[in-house]
């Protein structure tokens, strides 16, 4: 890998440097495309979304503010918003209910007596999601990852709108609480 941080590489992209652009695209394209494909479920559309996301990052690299988060989060947020916009006219009718199962949401689940070092954010997140009731887990992932509104969650899950909203809110609050406990445990 290039011995350059994500922040520095983005700064290089802002200068218009062609080598920085090539390195930036190489570093992030798999993650960006993977997120777009997860949300859209369509390889071709996902490539269009991924391309536009990388181009937007290139155009707006100088405006990136590291105080608001990491380069990865910034880039994935751009990708997610573009993918959601692209899917706005299709969902929820075309949503594949099996798509959530394919994400393997709780693969890092662990029992209370099993000590596991959770270094990676994604592993930590999966472990935390494993501690949520399934209906909350599904609701919060549909909203947070796939950009479903409360109404769309209610349609996909075939539950009243109020119930969908409650599951989304409770799910995120609980997820935050579980992650906070994990962090405190790791710190001590």
């Amino acid at each position, binding site marked *: 890998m290039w011995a350059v941080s994500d922040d*520095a590489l983005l700064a290089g992209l802002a200068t218009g440097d062609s080598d*920085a652009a090539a390195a930036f695209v190489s570093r992030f394209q798999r993650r960006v495309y993977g997120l777009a494909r997860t949300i859209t479920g369509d390889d071709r559309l996902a490539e269009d979304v991924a391309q536009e996301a990388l181009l937007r990052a290139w155009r707006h690299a100088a405006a990136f503010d590291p105080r608001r988060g990491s380069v990865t989060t910034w880039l994935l947020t751009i990708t997610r918003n573009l993918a959601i916009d692209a899917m706005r006219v299709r969902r929820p009718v075309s949503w594949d209910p099996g798509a959530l199962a394919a*994400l393997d949401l709780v693969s890092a689940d662990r029992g209370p007596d099993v000590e596991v070092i959770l270094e990676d954010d994604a592993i930590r997140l999966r472990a935390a999601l494993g501690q949520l009731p399934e209906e909350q887990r599904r609701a*919060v992932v549909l909203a947070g990852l796939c950009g479903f509104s409360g109404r769309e969650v209610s349609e996909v899950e075939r539950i009243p709108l109020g119930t969908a909203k409650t599951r989304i809110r409770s799910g995120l609050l609980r997820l935050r609480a579980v992650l906070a406990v994990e962090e405190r445990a790791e710190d001590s």
Partner: protein
Amino acid sequence: MTFGCAAVRELAPDLALGVVGGAERAELLLHVNACPHCQSLVAELSETADLLMLLAPEAEPSPGFTRRVLAEMGVGRRRLPWRSIAAAVAAAAAASILSIAVVRIVDEGVPAKTSVASAPRFDSAAMVGSGDRNAGTVFVSHSNPASINVSVDYAVPDGTYEVHLVQGSTSRVLGSMTVSENHGVWSGTIPGNRLAAAHVALVDANGTRVCEGVLKS
């Protein structure tokens, strides 16, 4: 409608997840921006919500994707310097393999391949201010002309600063940077390879270096 803390507490997850929009979102943000407690709650929940994007597995786009993107950026018309990199690798491998960096790039018509460069073509360093506080980053690309990008995000008071390139006892003004809300960016180029053992510094109106980054190569 004007929202208070109780309403924001209830709707904070919706805000963090982006499932509330339009006028309601605007009204909520009006309160959040003025209330440190609610701001902190929404920020914490947003951080958690952002993590959800990491659930998506990485995937390889089709061959040609990289080239299409780079072409849109205006990079595709220039051949990526595989041959020169490979030549540098051969020379470097004979001398030392300690500083090898591996770059994997998928190019059109060529399966995923791994190229090896003897040293990074980039250099970056922290911009360090008084008290060894990290103020930002300086990035250079060792091309000709060399590109320089200086960005500061912390610890530099708002104002206008000169960007200096310092080599030995010589200090040269490259341009000026305006810092607003602690955030400022300056980009430019320098003809030729004149960055060896250089410092890049931000200098205020009194001639004081408020922060500087040391370029190693």
